[in-house]
């Protein structure tokens, strides 16, 4: 049963990952990443990380992907032709990546860790992977890392506002545009009234 769940999750997680790379439109890449994340969360459950599986779904598939969808829609779907890498990287990139995969596999499988061939110990502490256990660890053993993470989030939020916010000159030109637009509208209304008045005058003259 566990094997079926693993291979099912692994198949879709890997398929989603390949789709992210292979699909032309960035919008579909984002959707493929959502599929990948959902099945990755399933794999996290197999590893007894219930809290992190839930966090992955809520934070990633929920919040971060919405941000991606917004930006992908904002900059527009720039379709690039398939396999249109820069000429230096088109061949050497995949070769490097596959070499890295082989190196990792040799390193892991050749490490001689006996525990790698087992599904992990059966006698894990009770509540392993629940929010309680992770929270306790975080507040007791890893408090500094937790505080550093919160500081990092704050800095990233400020950085995003600085990077993506409108510059002062942008804003000025925007208000200028708006002012000239209002002026134009006023002129139009005035011209309209003049025409109406002339038509009314003509009508009175005819009568």
């Amino acid at each position, binding site marked *: 049963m566990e094997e079926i769940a693993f291979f099912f999750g692994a198949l879709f997680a890997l398929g989603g990952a390949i789709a*992210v790379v292979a699909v032309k439109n960035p919008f579909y890449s984002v959707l493929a990443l959502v599929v990948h994340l959902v099945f990755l969360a399933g794999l996290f459950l197999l590893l007894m990380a219930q809290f992190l599986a839930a966090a992955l779904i809520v934070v990633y598939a929920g919040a971060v992907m919405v941000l991606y969808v917004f930006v992908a829609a904002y900059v527009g779907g720039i379709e690039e032709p398939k396999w249109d890498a820069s000429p230096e990287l088109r061949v050497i990139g995949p070769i490097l990546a596959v070499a890295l995969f082989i190196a990792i596999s040799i390193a892991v499988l050749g490490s001689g860790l006996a525990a790698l061939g087992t599904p992990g110990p059966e006698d894990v502490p009770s509540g392993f992977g629940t929010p309680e256990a992770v929270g306790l*660890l975080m507040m007791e053993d*890893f408090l500094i890392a937790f505080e550093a993470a919160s500081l990092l989030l704050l800095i990233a939020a400020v950085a995003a506002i600085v990077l993506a916010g409108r510059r002062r000159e942008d804003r000025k030109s925007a208000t200028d545009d708006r002012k000239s637009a209002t002026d134009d509208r006023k002129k139009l209304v005035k011209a309209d009234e003049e025409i109406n008045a002339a038509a009314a005058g003509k009508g009175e003259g005819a009568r």
Partner: protein
Amino acid sequence: MNIEWFIVLSALLFTVGLIGVLVRRNPVVILLCLELMLNAGALALLAFSRMLGNGDGQVFVLIVLVVAACEVVVGLGLIVAMYRRRLPLDVDEMKELKG
């Protein structure tokens, strides 16, 4: 399920992400592929955490999620800034830091 399967899957996901970072040219897709690589790292951390029956790896994964969120925010901010300045959204043409 043996732990080594998870590690091999994690290596595969990392490889796919790396290929994406190397061959794609759209910065949005490159950010997505970086996410793939971070997720592969998180999967490996969780697998080792399960192997040792120790929760430390899970806290590590939570920190990885935080760092990934920060990276997304800054990266997407950069992409929006590039778009506003009408620069080409193509990493091959953005070779200089000064835009």
